[in-house]
């Protein structure tokens, strides 16, 4: 059957779901996800896994665009003003989630390697879930700025934390020695490479777009820049979120006017792409995992949420941030999706071959992350909406 038929179905049903969830004062994202869940293999099976694979390019496309938009929202001036504070918050919320989850899992299982791996899953946030809500409600203000920056940048730290935790876990599981350099090398390349790639492309495309006059061409070229950035990142196994983020950031700060035009052009076409993205994400949710998630999943959910919220509160307090940021930032970054699942898949790849204990760990991690993602993907956007509405930053952007 033709793929376009399904894409059309996905947009229409996603859209109806979004309207529906708006009626309950929930963000549209929740409705898109539910539409996907209903259409997907879990319930009505209109979208088969095979088909989902085929339209998987939309994931990369949507993530690239989200990252670009987040990057464009991060202003150098904001960073300079609250840079130190933001960095502190990123560290405290990430480590807060890591430590609490690790602690909880250790108390439950008494296995250190398991605690480390689960802890390392926790900091990864889903930028799309947060950013799309911020856009839907036209949020603007200090909390919004902080949210964009934190969800954008904390993926770098999440990758780092995972690298260390995984190395340590391996040490506990099979013994032997590891060198610090070996641990750091991979993720450092992944992170720095992405930043450098995005930065260079940002400069190159900035010069090019400045020369363009027509609005049509601006959209074409900026979309092309994002696509190329995604493609190159995938090819070299760099973080495509970070590379597009730095593309957007360099672009936004060095070429202010050009970026305004590119940003507007990109934003005008994003809605259908987001809808498809979240419908696909919803279809991927495996609802049958929910009941078997067990106590471990519950611990993970509670510890991750309180770790993120508490960590953000602590970081914002010691760096003397706005009260709005202190109270609500943690709530805004609860979403968990692609990045965490990506890390879980990495665990299966790295630990699946390490004997029985490794295999058990791999299965447990992937199932638990997949199951808890159902909760976090749905709660995350709702919490973000709650946060910005409490902070009074809704409907402030023109």
């Amino acid at each position, binding site marked *: 059957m033709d*793929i*376009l038929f399904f894409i059309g179905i996905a947009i*229409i049903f996603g859209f109806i779901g979004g309207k529906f969830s708006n009626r309950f004062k929930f963000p549209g994202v929740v409705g898109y996800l539910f539409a996907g869940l209903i259409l997907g293999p879990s319930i009505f099976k209109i979208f088969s896994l095979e088909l989902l694979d085929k339209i998987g390019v939309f994931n990369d496309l949507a993530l690239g665009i989200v990252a670009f938009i987040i990057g464009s929202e991060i202003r150098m001036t904001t960073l300079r003003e609250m840079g130190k504070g933001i960095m502190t918050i990123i560290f405290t919320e990430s480590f807060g989630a890591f430590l609490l989850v690790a602690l909880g899992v250790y108390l439950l299982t008494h296995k250190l390697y398991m605690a480390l791996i689960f802890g390392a899953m926790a900091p990864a946030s889903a930028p799309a879930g947060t950013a799309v809500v911020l856009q839907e409600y036209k949020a603007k203000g200090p909390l919004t700025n902080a949210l964009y920056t934190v969800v954008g940048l904390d993926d770098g730290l999440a990758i780092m934390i995972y690298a260390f935790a995984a190395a340590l876990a391996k040490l506990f599981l099979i013994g032997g020695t590891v060198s610090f350099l070996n641990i750091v090398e991979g993720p450092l390349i992944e992170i720095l490479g992405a930043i450098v790639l995005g930065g260079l492309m940002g400069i190159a495309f900035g010069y090019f777009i400045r020369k363009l006059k027509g609005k049509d061409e601006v959209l074409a070229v900026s979309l*092309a820049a994002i696509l190329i950035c995604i493609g190159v990142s995938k090819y070299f196994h760099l973080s495509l979120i970070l590379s597009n983020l730095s593309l957007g950031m360099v672009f936004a700060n060095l070429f202010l006017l050009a970026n305004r035009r590119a940003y507007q052009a990109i934003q005008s076409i994003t*809605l259908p792409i987001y809808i498809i993205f979240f419908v696909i994400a919803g279809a991927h949710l495996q609802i049958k995992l929910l009941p078997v998630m067990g106590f471990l999943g519950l611990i993970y959910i509670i510890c991750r949420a309180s770790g993120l919220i508490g960590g953000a509160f602590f970081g914002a307090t010691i760096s003397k941030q706005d009260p709005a940021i202190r109270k609500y930032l943690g709530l805004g970054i609860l979403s968990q999706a692609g990045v965490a699942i990506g890390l879980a898949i990495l665990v299966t790849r790295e630990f699946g071959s390490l004997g029985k204990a490794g295999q058990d760990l791999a299965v447990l991690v992937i199932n638990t992350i997949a199951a808890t993602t159902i909760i976090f993907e749905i709660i995350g956007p709702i919490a973000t909406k709650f946060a910005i509405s409490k902070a009074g930053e809704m409907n402030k952007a023109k």
Partner: protein
Amino acid sequence: MNILFLVGIAIFLGAFGGKIFQRFKIPQVVGYIIIGVLLGESALGILKQSTIEAFTPIINVALGLIGFRIGVELNREVFRKYGRSIYTILFSEGLFTFFVVTLLVTLITKKFYLGLLLGALASATAPAATTDVLWEYKTRGPLTTILQAIVALDDGLSLIIYGFASVFAKSLLSSEASFTLLHSVGVPLFELGKSCSIGVGMGYILCKLFRYIKDKEYSFSFVIAAIILTIGASILLEADFLLSVLVLGIVVTNLSPQECRKITGGIERFSPPIYILFFVLVGARLQPRLFLNTSIALLAVAYLIGRSFGKMMGAWGGAFFSKARKTVRKYLGLCLFSQAGVAIGLAMVIYHNFSLLGPEGKEVGILIINVITATTFVVQLIGPPCVKFAVTKADEVWRNITEEDIVESYRVGELMRRDFSLIREDATLDKIIKTIKERESYHFPVVNNQNELVGLISLGSLRSTFLEEQLNQIILAKDVAIPVGRVLYQEQPLKEAFEIFDRRQIDYLPVVQTKGSKKVVGIVEYHSLIESINRKLFERQQGLDEELKKAEG
């Protein structure tokens, strides 16, 4: 390689190529296609045949957008706007071109279905390349008006012709053995009905749903989804999706015109990257080697000649019967050569639909894509110059001008006042007042013995001296003159003068001979400048409005 990367590269290089070609006054479409040829298998081989196949959904979306936008143009208002004469010309040039090309191609290839298909494609005219020329040369007049109407409408006509031609061609190709009347009429009519009813159904649902959507952004996503769904459904039901989306567009624009206007901007913004990609892919599919085959090269030449002849004669005939002006009769045909998106799009649709009919169908599809793309090259290169020639001959160039255009085109020296009086710096107040009385001006440059500008006197600056009449003999011009702030020079663009006026909130400036010199050669006053600009504007447009009214009526 990652497919998104390829898409990105194709769009970027396509946009880049388009820009470069535009610099040489070649329509961008040609640039996109050439980039495609370079990336394709016949040159660099980055876009392989298998990759191109993977892009099929994107191509279909691009075609769907083209069809939808043409459909949206066909609303009641448009039909009401143009008089009957325009429709006479439209049908005459479209149908005549169709007949001529069909006849010629059938004679050469002995294949009636091929003739029908190429004939249908021949009737389309590319609006973009044509209207670009009109814009660039600011044309205005009966030829321009009729030309704009024709290019806006004839894509719709050609799609309808295509609809009929393609279903007949299909039944000719697929059932040559059992050729009965029922088959040759019934099947095509059924096919047409199927495509149209999908479009009508989707359009109806869409319009019903429109009522619940208030947000502009949402309705845009919804329309995109509807277009995509229509394409998908048509492919599913083996109908012609281009016709379905055309009908979708027509239904939407006529049932809910207001909502439709809201979304067209969004659709237009959404389209360029997809179009660029589309043309690059068309280029990548082109096989220049095919034209080494003389019969194919001959076919392309025949198509070109038949189409040009058909357009010229058809336009002439239509203009003759509708009693249009002589310039329209003579030159309209020359303006209709351009061919681009629609023709190529239709060629792609034919390729898509006919390759389902087996190897012969696929061959036909490839042949048509190549003939159309190659001839597009030629007509895109000769089309715009022909339009330029025609509008120049019809004396409609540089008529549709605004005040801004006049300002842009002149230098200060050309519109300044030369009849001004200088006041010597040692002139007494009496003498100054005498000078002011003689001339109808409020501002006067003050010069020294070497005729160098030293200051300005305006009525306002004199006011304070009037109180002390007994000093009339003592006060000299240099005492009351105000220092010179800014001057203009003769060769300065007039636009800069206006910028200075605006920024400094003044209405008078002296003009010196050259930049940096102090020799006053004229003055510029804001109000009289505006007057002379309006006079120039009137001179340019004089008489044209009446002619236009005659033509439109």
